[in-house]
Each structure stands twice: as C-alpha cells, then as structure tokens.
C-alpha cells in the first residue's frame, strides 16, 4: 500500500512537472521543473528496485546536463516570452500544421494506451516480477549492457557523437562573420 501511494505521488509529480515545463513563459522555471521531473523519475526507479539507475538518472540528467542547461539560460539571460506579440506568420502556427500537431498528440495518446495495455505484469508487486527481466546489481547491469545489449549501447553512443558533431557544426562561425 505505501508503495502504491508513493508510486502515484512520484508519477503525478513527474507528469505534472513535465506538463508545466512546456507551459512556462520563463525558461528558468522550465529548467527547474524539468529537474523536478527527473527527480520524480528517479524516485520511480527506486520503487522499481533499481537504485543504480535512479542514482545515474540524478547524476547524469539532473546533475550534469541540467547544470549546463541552467548555465546557458542564465548566460543568455533569456527574456520572458511575451504573449502579446506571438508571431502568427510562423510556419509552425499555420492552420494545416497546427492540425497535424493535434493529430500527433492523438497518436501519442493511442500509442501510450496500447503500450500500457501490453504490460503483462501490472498486477504483480514491484520487485517480485520475473527474474529474467529484472537487473538488480550494478555488476549484472554492466554485464548485460556489454554482452546482450552491446549493439544498442554502441549505436546510442554513436548517435550522441553525431549529435555533438552536428551541434559543433551548427554553432561554428564562418570566417569573416
């Protein structure tokens, strides 16, 4: 019972904070709410008996990446978004595009629902789920990443590298500018 209550608490916090992230006018608040959302997610990981993943979530996302975000927001001193002069001619605000956006949201909801229906062990208590899928100790996690999931692991790191190179190329100034 306490586990269920904590689950709903963390889940509500994660979802609520994530919704508020995109609803904020001040980017500073968005960054902080995203950190809160990450914290709630790490609470959910602890409930799933995965303390290492929870701590990694805090160290990597809330600790390292979000500090960089905060840095950028602070240094740019991004002003509050002004509601009055929304750019109505922006390509993303045209009618057809906006409809497509709504369709995407609907699709996302359908996907989420179907994914939730496919979960088989939803009524099994947390921590008592089948041993094959649960990865408890850090050593097991490392072994499974570097043996069973080597391809996914390496592919993800190449993806991140590509993104980094892309960011450098985009941010590079041309000579004489």
């Amino acid at each position: 019972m306490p586990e269920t209550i904590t689950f709903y608490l963390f889940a509500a916090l994660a979802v609520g904070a994530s919704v508020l992230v995109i609803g904020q006018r001040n980017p500073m608040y968005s960054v902080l709410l995203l950190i809160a959302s990450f914290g709630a997610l790490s609470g959910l990981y602890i409930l799933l008996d995965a303390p290492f993943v929870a701590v990694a979530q805090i160290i990597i996302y809330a600790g390292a990446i979000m500090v960089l975000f905060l840095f950028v927001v602070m240094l740019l001193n991004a002003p509050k978004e002004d509601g009055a002069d929304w750019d109505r001619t922006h390509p993303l605000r045209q009618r057809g595009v906006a409809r497509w956006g709504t369709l995407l949201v609907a699709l996302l909801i359908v996907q989420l629902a179907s994914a939730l229906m496919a979960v088989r062990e939803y009524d099994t208590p947390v921590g008592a789920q089948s041993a094959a899928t649960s990865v408890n100790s850090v050593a097991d996690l490392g072994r499974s990443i570097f043996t069973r999931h080597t391809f996914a692991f390496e592919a993800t790191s190449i993806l991140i590298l590509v993104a980094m190179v892309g960011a450098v190329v985009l941010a590079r100034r041309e000579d004489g500018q």
Partner: protein
Amino acid sequence: MEAYLRPAVIGLMIFIVFNALIMASAILVLAERKIMGFMQQRYGPYLVGPHGMLQPIADILKLVFKEELRPKGADKWLFTLAPVLSVVAAFVAFATVPYGAETTLFGLLDEPIKLGIADVNVAVLVVFAVTSMGVYGIVLAGWASNSKYSLFGGLRAAAQMISYELAYATSLAAVILLAGSLSLREIVDSQQSTWFGFLSQWYIFLQPIGFIIYVIAGVAETNRAPFDFPEAEQELVAGYNTEYSSVRFALFPQAEYINMVTMSAVATNLYLGGWHGLLPFYTPLDPLIEQYGLGWLAFLAKVAGFLFVYIWMRWTVPRYRYDQLMKFGWKYLFPASVLNLIATAALVLYFNA
C-alpha cells in the same frame, strides 16, 4: 516488542543525526574562529560565556532577529527556494553515510541494527549525486538575487563545482575498484584487517594519490578556501549570498558546514577505515573498541581530525586566481585522477586474475 522497537530506534537515529548535523554547523563556526585566532596568535571570540563558548548561540540569535530583505526585481520564489535547496541537499547527503558497526543497543534488540540511517547498496553514488544537487542552491541564489555580484558568484560556483566533480568522482571510482562494491559499509568493512599485524589496511595507503585528489576536489566542492571563489570578498562583495539576510542567509553557511561534515565522513569511510581502528597502526585500544562497539567514537574522532585539517588549510593557504583554479582543475587534477584510476584498474586486474 521487537516490531515496534526497531522503527523507533531508526527514528531516534534520524533525530540524533539531524540534530548532530545542526549542532555540528554551530560548533564548526566557533571552532573555525577559535582555530583562526590560535593561528593568528590571538584569542578569537572570548566574551560570550566561558572562553566564548556560547558564541554560536549569540550568532544564531542575532541572525534570527535580523530583518529579511528581498531586493527589488529579485525572483520571489527562487530567492526563497535557493537557500532551502542547498540546506536540504546538505542534510539528505548524510542519510546514506554509515557511522558505526552493528549494535544491539546493550541487548535491547534481538537482531543487531546497523548504525547509519539508510543502508543503500549504491551509497557512494547517492552521496555524490545529492551533493552535486547542492550546486543548484548556489546558482539559483546568484541568479534570483538580480545583482551582478551574486550572478558572478553563482556562475563561478557552477563552473567550479562541475569542473572539480570530475576529479572527485574519478578518485572515488579507484576506491570502488579496490573494494569491489558501491556500498559505503562494505568499503569500510574491507579495510578491517591489518598488514604485518600492525599496519591498518586503510585505502589511504593503497590510494595515496587518490586521497590527495579527493581532499583537494572535496575542498573545491564545498567552496572552501583556497577555493572559495563564489564568495571572494575582494572581487565579488560576498558572491552569491550578497543580497541575503537573516535566516535565509544563515542557511548558506549552515549548508556549507554540513557539506564539510559529509565530505569528512565520506573521506573517513573511504580512506581512513571508518570505524575500524583509531590510528593507522595497531594499538591496544583497538580490541577494546571492537569489543564494546565503540567504533562510532573512533569514527567521530577521525571526522573531527579531518575537519580540523579543513579549517587549518583555510587559514594557511592563500586563495588562487580564478583562471588558475580552472587550469589546475582541468589540466592537472583531472588527468592525475584518470591516470590514478587506470593504474588502479590495471593493478586490480593483475592481482585478481
């Protein structure tokens, strides 16, 4: 009986640790001023109580009765949230630090209870993660104050803390490799035995370079002199806490002192054998400590010694220049810690294979 006693004992332990941390921050302020006085050949605080021993009470009363100011244009919510965030992170970080072996409280409990609030199997990482959350308090304080000096202090704090966190985590990783565990309790227990029957098997002897890196990075992490750039008074008035007053101000130094205690406690657990043995060599006291379960006293003594070194360092070494700090962190400390980690990994592989 047992079913009710155990949660009560755990609750009592939380209560004691929480209050001990609050008291520690008060006592450390006094200790800092007294030691500073001693090192500068004067008395330090002397007027309140015998030998100025009640000075912390006077300090706290003064801070509580001051007016709370909030500068115009400051962010209302974040200005209040920032000090709370840094002090909460400081308290939470201590939650997974064990401070003693198992005890039955003189036979009160049937099953022995572990001294330490939460025994997590990734305790080292939890402490690291939560202390790294403390940077948000300082950065937000700098940003929300709507003041140039505060903003500079906050930015410096963020840059410094994320730079030194790397060296800090890498020196931790070397100890984790040696112990083969992420649990602080298991790391302490793996330092229990002795070499040649007299030299304690502490990791400070296996990891001398790692220990030095840990101490330097730890001092930089807690923003203490000679790395106290976020509040360099010659350059930034008072840095990130320039605009703060009263209790909201008091929470920042309190968080700093609690972080010092956590850092010292983790250093004691990782490198100085935790609650096993008082001195780095065998003394006739050691069997007595183990027999009567007084390991936590040895632990406290080591933490106190470490804190003394902390304060000693502050009044001995002058402050760096900011660019020197960054250069030192990235060009010397971080490569040194990586080399230390690689060498440790190679040796562990060689001796275990």
